[in-house]
C-alpha cells in the first residue's frame, strides 16, 4: 500500500519535471524567436540617424555600445538570457531600458496595475457568463436562448476600443451630467423597465401567460424602484441601509437554499434565513468594526466574523446533514457580506463627489487613480478605495462585455453535452429531483472542461490588457509593451513578453494538473 502511494507521488513528480522541462524549452524557443524578430524588424538608431544634433555620431556610438548593437541579435539574445537565468539564484536582471532604468523595476510597478484592471472583469465575466450560459442550456431553444445566442455573438464581434468609446460617452460623460440633476425621465424609465422585465421573464420562462405576468410584475417593480431612487436623490447619496441589506440577505438565503439543498429542506432553509437575519442584525456592529480601523484588515475582519456566525448557526441548528447545511449558511453569509461592504463604500460617495478633485463628476474616462485627491481625504482608506473603484468601473465593464460571451457559449455547449449523457438519464430514473440532477450531476460535470478555459483565459490577460490599457490610459504591462514597441526598446519588450509567456506556461501546467485532480477519468499516463 505504502509502496503504491510512493510510486504514485514519484510518478507525478516525474511527470511535473518532464512537463516543466518541456515548457521551459518552449519558452526558450519562443523568446529566441521573438527576440530576433523584434531585433531585426526594429532600428533603435532610426530617430538618431535623422537628428540634426552636432554630436550625432557620438550619440549613435554611445547608444550602439550601450545596447550592444555590434553583437548580432542571436548572440545578444544569450547575454539577455543570462540575466534571466540568473533569476534562479536571485540576481534577476532583464537589462536596462533605453533611458537606463532597470526593466525589472518598470515591470514590478506595472504588474499590480494590470492585475487590478483585469481581476474584477475576469471574475464578473466568469460568474455572469457561466450562469447565463447554463440558464440558456436549460432553456434550450427558448426565446431567452435565442436572444442570448445573438447577444453573445454580437459581443464576440465587438472591437473593445469601440465599446470603450461608447462607454466613455454614455456611462461616464452622460452619467456625470445626469448626476448634476438626478431625476430619471420617463423616456428612459419606461424602456429600461420594459427591457429589464423582458430579460427576467425570459430567464424564468414558462407558458405565454406566465411569461407576460412576470414581465409586467418585474417591469413595474423596476419602474417603481427607479422612481423611488430618483425621488429620494439616491444617486447622489447612495446607500443600502439596514433595510437594503436585509432584502439582499433574505433573497440570497432563499436563492442559495434553492440551489444548494432545495427549499423542501426545512432545516437548511431555517439555517439560511437565520443567517440572513443575523447578517441584518450585525449591520450596526459591523459599521463600528469598519469605522474603527478603516483599512483592508477591517474588511477581512467583517468577512470572517460573518462567516463564523454563519458556521455556528449551521452547526447548532441540526445534527443531521451538518455539512451541507453549514455550507449553505456560509455561502448565504458570504454573498450577503458583499452588499454590506459595498454599502460602506457608498456612504463615502457624497463626500467623494463633493471633493474638489472630483467636482461632482465621479466617473472618470481615463486614468487609474485621481492624483489630486484632497490630501486631507487621501489618508482615508474608504475614499481611496472608492476612487480606485470608480476608475476601474469602465474598463471592467468593457472587458466583461468582451470576454463573457465566450463563457456563455462554452458553458452552454458543455452543459448541453452533459445533459445528453447516460448518467443523467440514470439519475432521473432513480427518481432524484430535477434540482439534484441538474445541480449535482449535470452542472458539476459541465464545469470540468471549463477549468481549462478559465486558466488559459487568465494567461491571455496580457493580450487583452494591451488594448484596454491604451484606451483607458492605464500604466500597466500593456502600456509598457506599447512603449517598448514605439521606442524600439528591446529589453523592455522582452521583459514584458517573458512575463506573459511565463504566465501562459504556468497556467497551462496548472490546467493540466487541475484537470487531473477534478476529473478522475483523466490520469497521467505512462
Amino acid at each position, binding site marked *: 500500500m505504502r509502496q503504491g502511494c510512493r510510486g504514485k507521488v514519484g510518478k507525478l513528480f516525474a511527470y511535473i519535471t518532464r512537463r516543466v522541462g518541456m515548457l521551459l524549452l518552449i519558452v526558450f524557443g*519562443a523568446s529566441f524567436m*521573438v527576440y530576433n524578430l523584434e531585433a531585426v524588424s526594429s532600428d533603435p538608431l532610426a530617430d538618431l540617424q535623422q537628428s540634426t544634433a552636432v554630436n550625432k555620431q557620438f550619440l549613435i556610438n554611445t547608444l550602439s555600445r550601450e545596447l550592444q548593437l555590434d553583437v548580432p541579435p542571436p548572440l545578444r539574445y544569450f547575454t539577455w538570457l543570462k540575466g534571466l537565468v540568473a533569476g534562479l539564484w536571485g540576481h534577476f536582471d532583464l537589462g536596462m531600458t533605453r533611458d537606463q532604468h532597470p526593466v525589472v523595476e518598470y515591470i514590478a510597478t506595472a504588474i499590480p496595475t494590470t492585475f487590478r484592471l483585469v481581476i474584477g472583469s475576469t471574475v464578473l465575466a466568469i460568474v455572469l457568463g457561466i450562469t447565463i450560459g447554463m440558464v440558456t442550456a436549460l432553456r434550450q431553444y427558448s426565446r431567452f436562448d435565442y436572444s442570448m445566442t445573438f447577444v453573445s455573438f*454580437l459581443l464576440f464581434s465587438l472591437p473593445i476600443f469601440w465599446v470603450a468609446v461608447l462607454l466613455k460617452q454614455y456611462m461616464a460623460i452622460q452619467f456625470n451630467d445626469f448626476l448634476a440633476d438626478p431625476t430619471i425621465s420617463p423616456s428612459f424609465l419606461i424602456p429600461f423597465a420594459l427591457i429589464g422585465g423582458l430579460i427576467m421573464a425570459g430567464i424564468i420562462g414558462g407558458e405565454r401567460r406566465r411569461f407576460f405576468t412576470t414581465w409586467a410584475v418585474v417591469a413595474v417593480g423596476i419602474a417603481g424602484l427607479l422612481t423611488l431612487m430618483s425621488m429620494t436623490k439616491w444617486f447622489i447619496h447612495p446607500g443600502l441601509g439596514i433595510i437594503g441589506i436585509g432584502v439582499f440577505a433574505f433573497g440570497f438565503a432563499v436563492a442559495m437554499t434553492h440551489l444548494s439543498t432545495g427549499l423542501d429542506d426545512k432545516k437548511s432553509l431555517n439555517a439560511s434565513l437565520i443567517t440572513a437575519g443575523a447578517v441584518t442584525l450585525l449591520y450596526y456592529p459591523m459599521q463600528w468594526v469598519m469605522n474603527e480601523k478603516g483599512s483592508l484588515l477591517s474588511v477581512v475582519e467583517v468577512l470572517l466574523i460573518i462567516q463564523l456566525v454563519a458556521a455556528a448557526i449551521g452547526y447548532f441548528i441540526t445534527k443531521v446533514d451538518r455539512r451541507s447545511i453549514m455550507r449553505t449558511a456560509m455561502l448565504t453569509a458570504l454573498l450577503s457580506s458583499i452588499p454590506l461592504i459595498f454599502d460602506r463604500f457608498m456612504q463615502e460617495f457624497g463626500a467623494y463627489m463633493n471633493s474638489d478633485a472630483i467636482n461632482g463628476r465621479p466617473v472618470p474616462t481615463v486614468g487609474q487613480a485621481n492624483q489630486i485627491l484632497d490630501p486631507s481625504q487621501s489618508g482615508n482608506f474608504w475614499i481611496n478605495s472608492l476612487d480606485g473603484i470608480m476608475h476601474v468601473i469602465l474598463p471592467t465593464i468593457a472587458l466583461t462585455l468582451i470576454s463573457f460571451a465566450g463563457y456563455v457559449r462554452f458553458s452552454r455547449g458543455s452543459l448541453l453535452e452533459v445533459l445528453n449523457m447516460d448518467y443523467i438519464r440514470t439519475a432521473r430514473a432513480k427518481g432524484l429531483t430535477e434540482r439534484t440532477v441538474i445541480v449535482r450531476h449535470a452542472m458539476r460535470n459541465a464545469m470540468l472542461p471549463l477549468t481549462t478555459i478559465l486558466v488559459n483565459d487568465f494567461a*491571455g490577460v496580457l493580450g487583452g490588457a494591451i488594448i484596454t490599457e491604451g484606451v483607458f490610459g492605464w500604466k500597466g504591462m500593456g502600456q509598457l509593451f506599447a512603449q517598448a514597441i514605439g521606442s524600439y526598446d528591446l529589453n523592455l519588450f522582452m521583459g514584458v513578453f517573458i512575463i506573459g509567456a511565463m504566465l501562459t506556461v504556468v497556467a497551462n501546467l496548472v490546467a493540466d494538473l487541475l484537470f487531473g485532480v477534478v476529473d478522475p477519468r483523466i490520469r497521467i499516463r505512462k
Partner: protein
Amino acid sequence: MARNPKELEKTVEKNENEISLRETEGLSQGQIIFRRFVRHRAAMASLISLVFIILFVFSASGLHLGSDKHPVTIPGWWPHTITEIDVNAATSDLCENGIPGCPTLDILPSFIDKTGVGFGAHPFGMDNLGTDYLALVMRGAEQSIMVMLIVGIMGVVLGAVVGAIAGFYGGVVDAILMRMTDMFLVTPVIVLGSVIGYRFGNLGVVPLAVMLGFFSWMGLARFVRTEFLTLREREFVDAARVAGASNRRIIFKHILPNAVGVIIVAGTLLMSGAILLESALSYLGFGVQSPDVSLGLLISKYQDTFTVSPWLFWWPGLFIISIALCINFIGDGLRDAFDPRQKRRITKKDRIKASDVSKVGA
C-alpha cells in the same frame, strides 16, 4: 391510440426519428450538410448579408494592390476618392447643431419625414477635412476584408498541413511540430501582430496580412491534429492502406475530407478573429498606417470627435461589427451542419407534414 404518457412519448420519439430519417434518405453526406446549413436561418441570413457587403465594398471602392510606388488599381463605381477634398465642405450638409459634413443618407420613408428615402451627395457624410466618408469607409472595409481573407486562407492551409502531418505521422514528427506550435502559442497574437504590424504596416495591407497569416495557424493546427489522431485509427484508413494507397493519398483523399468540418469551422473563427486583430492593431498604431486607410485607424482618428460628429465613429464600427458578426454566425451554422450529433428540432409543422405524408402513403 397511445393513452399513457410513456407510450405517447415513445411514439413521439419514434415519429421524430422517422421524420429526421426520411429527410436524409438517399442523400450524400455533402447534401445533408448543405441542407442543414441552408436551414440554419441566422447563418443563411448572415451569408447573404456578407456576400452583399463584400460585393458592395469591392464594387464601390475598387481594388487597390501593389505598393505606393507601383499601385495596381481597379477603380470602383463610387465617384469620390479618399484624397479628394470638397472645397465647400465647411458650409455644406450642416447638421442640426451646425456641424458640417452630416450624412445625407436618409432611410426614413416619406410618410415619416418629409424628405423621403434618398442617398444625397455624401451618404456617410464627410470628415473634418471634407473628404467623402463613404469612400474612406469603403477603402477601410476593403482592406479589412482583404486581411481577413488572406489570413483565413493562409491560416487554414498552413494549419491544416501542419496539423495533418503531425497527427498522421505521430511520434517524433508530431512532437517536434507540436512543440513548435506551442512555441508560437505562448506568444500572444497581439504581441506578434504588433511587432509585425509596426514593421510591415506601412508597406500596405497585403504584406501585413501575409505576415499575420504566418503567425495565425496554430489553433487550427491543434484542432486538425486531434481530428487526425482519431481518424487515422479508423477502419477505412486501414482498408485504404491494405489496398496499397500511399501516405499522401490516405492523407488527402481519405482523412482530410473527413476533417473538413473542423477545418472550416476553425477557419471561420480565425477569420473573424483576423478582422478584429487587424482593426485593433491599426487602432493602436501598429497596423495599417496613415495616409492609408483602415477601419481601426478611422475609429482611432475620430473617437475624440464623438460628441460633435458621431457618424465618423459609427460607420467604421458598424462595418467591423457586421462583417465579424456575419462570419461568426456562418461559423455557427457550419458547426451545426457538420456535427452529426446535431438533431434538428422537430416542430409541430414537421409532425403535421409527416402525418399527412403517412396518411397519403396509407
